C-alpha cells in the first residue's frame, strides 16, 4: 500500500497534522485510566494492520518531513549524532537491520539487494539510490549509523553490553524528550536514567536491566513511554530548551486543543547479531488534543490519567504550567463512562 507522505513542518509555522487514519493508528500509551512507571515490556511482534505495530520498524505519512527536520537539526548541531570508536560493527548491524525491516515492510518504497558484500539500497521517498560495500565505510557518504538513521524515523541509541551493564556508546537524537546524547554518551544504564524520579526506588531499572541483558537475537521487545509537548515540535532537546521552553507559557483554554500534544515513544529493543550490542529505537509520535478528542475512549481516559499523576512525575515531564488547562479542556469530552481495557480505540 502506498503511503501518501505529507509535506509539513515541526518548527516555525508548525504545519504538522495527522490524517484521520494516522489518528487511529497513534500508539496511545495508556492501557488503563492511571499511570505509573513499570517494566512494561512486551514482545515486539507485528500487530494489526492500521496500527503503528503493523511493521516492526514503522514508516508513516510523516516520514519525509521528519527526515527533513532531522537534517536541519544535524546541520545546526552535529553533536546530535555520535558514536564511540569501538561501535563500528554495531553501526553496520544497525544499518542492516533498518534497511531489511524497511524493505520488508514497505517494498513499494524501499528495496535492498545483496550480492555478497555488494549491497544496493533504494529509498524512493527520499530519492536515494546507493550502491555500497557492506563493511567498507568509504563507500557511504556518512558512517553507517548516521547514513541509515537519516532515512529512518525515530531516535536511535546503540547500547554496548559489557561488565553486566549496558553502555550508551553511540546514537542519534533529534526528536528527543529533553535528554542530551552529547552528555549521556558513554554512560551505563543506571547512569543515563539517573535523573528519572521515583522509578529507581521501586526497582524498575534494576529489573529492566536484568531483562535486557538477556535479550535474544530475533526476539525484539517494546514498551511505550510518553510525555507532552507544546506545538508539534520534534526537537525538544535540552540543547534548544531556550527555544521551546517559552512555548509552555502560551497555553490558554482557547488554544489548548491545537497547541498541546501527547507525545508517545514507541521504544523497541533489538539484539544485534555481530556486535552483540542492542539497538534501542525511540520512535516519537505526536497527536494534538483536538485530534485525540476524535477517539472517544482516549479522550475519556487521558484526563483521568493526567489527574492521577504523582507530583514528581508532573514536574519531571514538564507538565506543571499547562496540566490543569489540559485536564479542563479534555474533561468536557469525558462523560464518565467506563473505558475498555487496552490501548486501542473501541
Amino acid at each position, binding site marked *: 500500500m502506498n503511503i501518501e507522505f505529507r509535506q509539513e513542518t515541526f518548527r516555525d509555522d508548525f504545519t504538522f497534522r495527522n490524517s484521520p487514519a494516522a489518528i487511529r493508528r497513534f500508539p496511545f500509551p495508556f492501557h488503563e485510566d492511571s499511570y505509573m512507571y513499570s517494566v512494561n515490556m512486551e514482545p515486539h511482534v507485528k500487530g494489526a494492520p492500521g496500527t503503528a505495530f503493523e511493521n516492526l520498524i514503522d514508516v508513516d505519512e510523516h516520514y519525509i518531513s521528519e527526515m527533513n527536520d532531522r537534517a536541519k537539526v544535524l546541520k545546526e548541531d552535529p553533536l546530535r549524532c555520535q558514536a564511540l570508536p569501538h561501535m563500528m560493527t554495531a553501526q553496520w548491524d544497525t544499518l542492516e537491520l533498518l534497511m531489511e525491516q524497511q524493505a520488508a515492510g514497505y517494498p513499494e518504497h524501499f528495496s535492498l539487494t545483496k550480492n555478497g558484500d555488494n549491497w544496493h539500497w533504494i529509498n524512493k521517498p527520499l530519492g536515494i539510490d546507493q550502491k555500497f560495500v557492506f563493511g567498507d565505510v568509504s563507500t557511504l557518504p556518512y558512517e553507517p549509523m548516521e547514513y541509515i538513521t537519516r532515512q529512518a524515523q525515530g531516535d536511535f541509541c546503540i547500547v554496548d553490553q559489557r561488565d553486566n551493564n549496558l553502555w550508551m556508546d553511540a546514537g542519534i537524537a533529534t526528536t528527543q524528550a529533553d535528554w542530551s546524547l552529547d*552528555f549521556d554518551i558513554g*554512560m551505563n544504564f543506571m547512569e543515563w536514567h539517573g535523573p528519572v524520579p521515583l522509578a529507581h526506588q521501586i526497582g524498575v531499572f534494576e529489573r529492566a536491566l536484568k531483562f535486557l541483558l538477556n535479550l535474544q537475537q530475533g526476539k525484539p521487545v517494546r514498551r511505550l513511554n510518553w510525555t507532552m509537548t507544546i506545538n508539534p515540535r520534534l526537537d525538544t532537546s535540552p540543547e534548544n530548551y531556550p527555544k521551546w521552553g517559552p512555548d509552555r507559557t502560551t497555553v490558554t483554554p482557547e488554544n489548548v486543543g491545537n497547541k498541546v500534544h501527547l507525545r508517545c515513544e514507541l521504544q523497541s529493543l533489538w539484539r544485534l547479531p555481530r556486535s552483540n550490542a542492542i539497538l534501542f529505537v525511540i520512535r516519537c509520535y505526536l497527536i494534538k488534543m483536538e485530534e485525540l478528542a476524535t477517539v472517544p475512549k482516549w479522550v475519556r481516559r487521558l484526563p483521568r490519567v493526567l489527574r492521577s499523576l504523582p507530583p514528581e512525575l508532573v514536574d519531571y515531564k514538564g507538565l506543571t504550567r499547562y496540566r490543569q488547562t489540559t485536564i479542563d479542556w479534555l474533561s468536557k469530552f469525558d462523560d464518565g463512562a467506563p473505558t475498555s481495557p487496552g490501548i486501542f480505540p473501541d
Partner: protein
Amino acid sequence: MLVVGIKSRPVYKGLVIDIHSARHLFALEGEGAEALLDQIKSVGSGFLEKAEILYVGPENQAGKLRDLKSFDFWTAPTIPVLLNRLKASLQAARMGTRLYLSGTEGFIGQAMQVALDLGIDFNSIRTEHRGSTARRVQCVHCKGITDNVTTSPFTCSHCGLPLLVRDHYSRRLGAFQGVNIDAEDPGSAPNPEVLFP
C-alpha cells in the same frame, strides 16, 4: 560532604593503597595530599619507593609530600600543566601501575578523563574526594565548561545564560549538567544560592 544518591556520579571510594602494585602513580590536588598522608598512617610508607607523585596546589601540602622522599615527586603550577604531565606518565606506564586521584571533584573528573582517553578502566582507578564541593559544569546549550561552580543557579562563563546545576554527571566530560533555569520565562531566574561550598 558530597550529596549522595546521584546515580550518574562516580563513587569516590577512597585512596586505598594497592600494596601489590609494581608502581603507584598519584595525581593529587590541594587537600588531596592529605588523603595520601592518611594512607601512610595506616599502611606504612614502604610503597613510596615505587611511587610517582604529581601535585598541584598550595605549598604547605607540597612540602609534606616532598618530605616523603617518594621515588618521584613533581609539582605543577596549574591543573592543565599537571594533566599534561599525567598523560605523559601514563603513556610511559608499564603493566602493574595503579593510578590514584584525589582532590576536588572537578580535578578528579579531569584527571580521570586523561586516563579514560588512554583506555584505562575507570573501575581500576582509586579516587578520594577532598576539599571544596564546588562543581565543574557543562552548559548543555553552548557546551562550554565552567570550573569551580559553588552556586545554583550560576551564570555560564561562556554564553551568559543563568544555569541550574542538575544532579547529573558525565564521566566522559568530567562535569555536571547545567540547564537554563529561566528558559520558560526569561528574566525569572532566582538568586544564586551557595549549594556547593
